[in-house]
Every structure is written in structure tokens, then in C-alpha cells.
């Protein structure tokens, strides 16, 4: 492939874009406007939130607590971790969303009066950490874990007090019983999104979702050359088809990166979303994501001969699955297997995970490698298939 030809093509495509002020305005500003306009997310039922237990107590009581947590509709105990660090790396990888840490001495606290006094003054030897990147499921999970633990602890203490009742005088017993009316207060710690701000979660996901717009607009580039009659002259020149396709894609990658930078600024300054990842890596992954989306758009552009049909096809592909299956509103985990399979070929799913991961969790390649790999495959394969289908002929 002749590099000069690629640049010639890219320059020409850039001129087309900038010649029409409305096009460049919509391309550059449109996604940011979308980001600002879309404000609310939808509520979903949360079930079987993966929960990991760190049990330092190792007692009959802690085992019973685990079982009763597992029995709830919302929580699903998926495993045990040796220590908090181990458990937190599961949280990072999104293998777990809730961590329950049972400290040594928890059994004492609920089975003896001395322990009960300790719990009432120093708090229970029990801690929770909840992944807040997905506020809807986080909130539900937090409620569930706190409620169930409090119910369990209260029931245990009730029994303890009943057992000790004969050894206590009237006033002390009354005092204990009164205390049992007000359940123990347990605080759950919320990782990544302390205030459970929906907007923190929504904005990074939306950045990925609205970046399908350049993908939609590239889906008309070949059809446009065809309908304007310029394709016939173009394919009669020595420019290679790779140079044509790559040259056409590059300006769109550039525009997508303008979008990313603008949306990053809006996310930080307007919505106050924290950014905890590596910015350089984020920009690199964003351009990879843009390229993958554009490769799919380019494929539509080659497969579909008329401008209208190409636009409709890319809308059907990008807009609706892009919004609904992206994982922005509904976590991808809740989809049936076949839909999950389909989400593999949607770059937006990986885009959403990368954006959330880098903004809120501050994770890097170590955690996101699977999605990076998916995007690489989509980008390279999409482009390869496109250039195999595209013929330097007119029929």
C-alpha cells in the first residue's frame, strides 16, 4: 500500500467533510450534544449479584451468615477470597460486585453478651464493599447485603439474650431487649462511585455509545462516490483499494478523537465525573474503539449500494443494539446467551466497559485486555473483510 496514496485519499475525504459546514459541525459537536442531552438511565431488576466472601472468622455463625446471604434473591455468593486484596482484584475484574468481609471475633460478638456490648460500642466485625460503577445494581445489592446481615445479626443476638435471660436482672434484661428493637447499623463501603451518582456511571458509557455516530456517517462514503458517479473515475486510477479504504477511514478516526476529547472535557467539567485511569492509554484505546466502529461502518458502506439503504442498515446495527445492548442500561450479564454472543461483535460493548473501567475504576490493560483484544479483532477483521469485498470495478 502506497502511503502517499492513503494521505491523498484522507486529505480529499477531509476536504469533503469540511466543505459542508453543517456536516463537520454535526460530526464534531453532535456526539457531545447527545451526551449532554441524554440524562436519565432506566431502572432494571437486579438479581444474583456476584458476591465474594472473605471469612477470617471461620465459625459456624459466619458460615450461617454466608448461607443466608446466598439465599437472598439479589445476592449470589460466587466464591471466597483469602484476603481483602484478593477480593478487591475480583471487584476490579468485575467478577464480583460485592465483597463481604467477616473479621475474626464476629462469632463472639453475636453469641455472648460481652461480644454484644463490644458490637454496640465498636460496631460489628463485618464489612461490605460494593462496586458502585453500576449504581442501579450497586444500590440494590447494598440494600440487600445490609438488610440481610442486620436481620441475621438481630436474630442471633435475640437468641443470645434469651439464653442469658435467667442470669440477668430485670433492668439489664430490659435494656438488652430494648437495644434489640433497634437493629445494628452496618455501613457498606462503596468503591469507585461513593455517592452512587447515576450520572458518573452514565456519562462514561454514553461517551462510548455516542461514538457510534461517526460509524454511521462513514457508512455512506462509498455509496456517495457511487451515486455521484465519481467511483467510476476513481477505480480507473492506480490507487490501491487499501489506500482508498484506509484513506477514507482516517479522517473519521480524527473526528472521533475530537469527539472523545470534547466529551472527556464535558464529563469532567460539566458532570464532575472523576477520571482515575491513564489518560494516554485512554486516548489510545478510544482511537482503537473508534477504528473498530468505523471498520464496521465501512463494511456497510461497501456491502450496500445506495446511500439511504446504507444509512438505514448502519442505524439498525449501531443505534438500537448500540444503545440497548451496549451494557449502558442493562448489564450485559443479564442477556440470554445468544444475545451475549451477539454483543461480542458490537464494538460498543467493549467501548462501554473500557470507558467505565478507565473513568471510575482506574483500571488498565491488565483488567481490560479481553475487550481490547475484541476491539482489535473487530477492527482488523472488519477492515480486512471490507477490503476483500471492495473491488476496483463498477459492477
Amino acid at each position, binding site marked *: 500500500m*502506497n502511503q*502517499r*496514496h492513503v494521505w491523498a485519499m484522507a486529505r480529499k475525504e477531509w476536504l*469533503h467533510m469540511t466543505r*459542508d459546514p453543517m456536516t463537520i459541525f454535526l460530526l464534531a459537536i453532535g456526539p457531545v450534544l447527545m451526551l449532554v442531552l441524554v440524562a436519565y438511565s432506566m431502572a432494571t431488576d437486579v438479581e444474583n449479584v456476584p458476591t465474594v466472601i472473605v471469612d477470617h472468622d471461620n465459625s459456624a455463625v459466619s458460615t450461617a451468615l454466608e448461607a443466608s446471604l446466598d439465599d437472598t434473591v439479589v445476592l449470589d455468593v460466587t466464591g471466597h477470597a483469602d484476603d481483602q486484596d484478593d477480593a478487591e482484584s475480583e471487584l476490579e475484574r468485575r467478577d464480583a460486585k460485592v465483597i463481604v468481609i467477616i473479621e475474626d471475633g464476629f462469632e463472639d460478638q453475636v453469641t455472648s453478651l460481652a461480644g454484644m456490648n463490644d458490637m454496640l460500642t465498636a460496631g460489628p466485625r463485618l464489612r461490605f464493599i460494593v462496586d458502585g460503577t453500576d449504581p442501579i445494581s450497586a444500590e440494590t445489592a447494598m440494600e440487600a447485603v445490609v438488610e440481610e446481615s442486620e436481620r441475621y445479626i438481630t436474630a442471633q443476638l435475640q437468641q443470645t439474650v434469651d439464653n442469658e435471660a435467667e442470669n440477668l436482672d430485670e433492668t439489664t434484661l430490659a435494656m438488652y431487649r430494648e437495644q434489640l428493637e433497634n437493629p445494628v447499623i452496618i455501613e457498606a463501603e462503596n468503591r469507585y462511585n461513593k455517592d452512587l451518582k447515576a450520572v458518573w456511571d452514565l456519562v462514561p458509557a454514553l461517551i462510548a455509545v455516542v461514538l457510534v455516530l461517526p460509524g454511521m456517517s462513514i457508512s455512506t462514503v462509498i455509496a456517495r462516490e457511487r451515486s455521484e458517479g465519481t467511483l467510476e473515475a*476513481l477505480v480507473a486510477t*492506480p490507487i490501491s483499494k487499501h489506500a482508498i479504504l484506509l484513506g477514507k477511514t482516517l479522517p473519521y478516526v480524527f473526528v472521533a478523537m475530537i469527539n472523545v476529547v470534547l466529551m472527556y472535557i464535558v464529563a469532567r467539567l460539566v458532570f464532575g465525573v472523576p477520571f482515575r485511569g491513564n489518560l494516554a492509554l485512554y486516548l489510545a484505546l478510544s482511537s482503537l474503539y473508534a477504528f473498530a466502529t468505523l471498520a464496521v461502518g465501512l463494511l456497510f458502506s461497501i456491502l450496500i449500494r445506495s446511500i439511504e439503504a446504507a444509512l438505514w442498515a448502519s442505524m439498525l446495527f449501531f443505534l438500537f443494539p448500540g444503545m440497548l445492548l451496549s451494557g449502558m442500561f442493562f448489564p450485559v450479564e443479564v442477556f440470554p446467551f445468544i444475545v451475549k454472543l451477539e454483543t461480542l461483535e458490537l464494538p460498543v460493548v467493549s467501548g462501554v466497559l473500557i470507558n467505565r473501567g478507565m473513568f471510575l475504576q482506574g483500571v488498565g490493560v491488565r483488567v481490560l485486555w479481553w475487550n481490547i483484544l475484541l476491539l482489535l479483532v473487530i477492527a482488523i477483521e472488519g477492515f480486512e473483510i471490507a477490503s476483500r469485498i471492495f473491488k476496483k*470495478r463498477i*459492477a
Partner: protein
Amino acid sequence: MSETMIEAQDLTRTFRSGFRRKRITAVENLNLAIQPGELFGLVGPDGAGKTTTLRMLAGILKPSSGQATVNGHDIVKGAEDIKQELGYMPQQFGLYPDLTVDENMNFVCDVFDVMGEERQTRMEELLDFTGLHDIRTRRGRNLSGGMQKKLGLAAALVHKPKLLLLDEPSTGVDPVARREFWDILTTLHAAGSTVVVSTPYMDEAERCNRVGLMYGGQMMICDSPSGIKRMLPGSVLALRADNLTLAEDVLKQVPDVLDVQPYGDVLNIISNDEAGASAIESRLTAAGVTVDSLRPTPPRMEEAFIYFVRQYASGDAAQAAASPTEVTA
């Protein structure tokens, strides 16, 4: 490498078209040999297969069967080699309407690797040559039809191609621009370029050194303009009379009259030599037509073309109906 610039053997292209995917033959068993330095005219009625032929020769359309070489390269396997040496100008304006003359030219230069100083001089030369120098910052869509055609030609010439394929370069252009355009082509031809040009205009066919007459996807006649005119049987008589409509009706009943072609206030009569002017005149007078003048006139491509096309149309009317002609567009 062969001496011949273009050589086609049994070149055929069919399309499937319409809801029933009916097979349409656009070009059928075309044989053609064009030598370097020729100015070759491809003529024929609409839908004769001229555009399809040129597209196949340009390497942008695969033949259904048969083969052809352009400057020694096979049009399928060597399509990309052909494109290096070819200047192709499609029938439609092939350049970008939202780019200026300069931007369009620069893009084409990029693609053909015409760089640096060579590009500067070549662009100056071509813009002077085509008279586009003063409007180089004007956008493609704001050019007149004639200017667009000239820009298309200039773009096809940046890399000094060995062969020029021009598809109806003067259709939709005013007569003055058309004349200028042909002066440019003649200059190129004189400089040794091989030019193949399709045209619906017979005065343009007259300016070619050889003309191929296509009809229904086939090459019917291929000869020099004078050769084609000599193939016209009999002689041409020009009739001026008071009632040409009546005269035409009368003449069509005369067996020796091969064809009658109204041409303004003149009726061109192609007749067998045996039917002399006097015999025709007496038939007309008998029918009540007042003859002002009836005299032999040298045949032009126009008469030859119409005569041959009518011959083919009536000769294979049944066949023509089976292969509709609305193929090229």
C-alpha cells in the same frame, strides 16, 4: 508486448436486470484491433454497448466471456497495470463537485504519483491547454458542462497516458466548447497519443481516422469514415420540394429507394444507381409534388450511420426485441 494497443476477441458482457433478473447482453462477441496512434471513434445508437466496451477496456468491468488486451495487459489479470497507463474519462463528470479545480487536479496527481516540480509544470500546461487556468479555484459543481468535460480530460492527462478512453466527452456541451474539445483531441492525436472516443455525433465520427459502428452490442462495421461512406450502396440525392411529407410517403413506395432521411427542409434519398434522378422526379411529379431541386450530394457519416442502423434494426427486428437496448446509462 504486442504492437497493437487494443485487441479484443469475442468480448462479451451480459447483465442481469430487473425483478426477474433477465439476462441482457450489452456487448456480444466484439472483435476489435486498434493500433498505437489511432484516433478511433466508437459510434452507435444509445444502448449499443459503447460504454460497456470502454469500461471493460479500462479494466473496471469484467467481461462475461472473451478476452482483450490493452497495451499488452490482459483486461482482467492486468487491470491494475492498464490503469497505470490509461487516461479514462467516464461519461458522467467523474471528479468531485465539492472540490475546486486545483484540488481535483492535485488529488489525481497524487494518485498517479505526479509529484513535485513535474506536477507544477504539468498542471500549468494542462490548465492552459484546456483553458481552465483562470478558474482553478472554482468548485467542480460550479463549472459549466463544457468546463467539467475539460477538467475531466485534464485529469485524465496528468500522467501522460499512452491511451485515452473517452466516453461521450462532448455530450451535453455547447457547439463552441465541443469544437474546442475536439481541437484538443486532435492536438493529442497529432502528438502521437492513442485515443478511443465514443460519440453519438456524426460530425465527430468524421474527425476520427477510424470508426467502429456498434449496434445491439455488436461491432457492425469498422472502417475509416470514407470507407464507411463508400459502403453506402447507391448514391444520395438531395430533394427540395414543396411537400416533403407527401414526398417521403411516395418515395417509400419506390422499390429502388433504399432509405429516405428528412433533414431540415431537405430530404436525403438513398437510392440504387439504377433508379436515376429523373425516374424519381417523375414519380414525385406524378404524385403531385412540386420538385424545386433534386441533385446528387456527397454522402456524409450521418446518412451512412442512419442507413446502417435502420438496416440492422429492420434486419434483426426479432433479435433486437429479444435483447433490449436500454443497457448503458
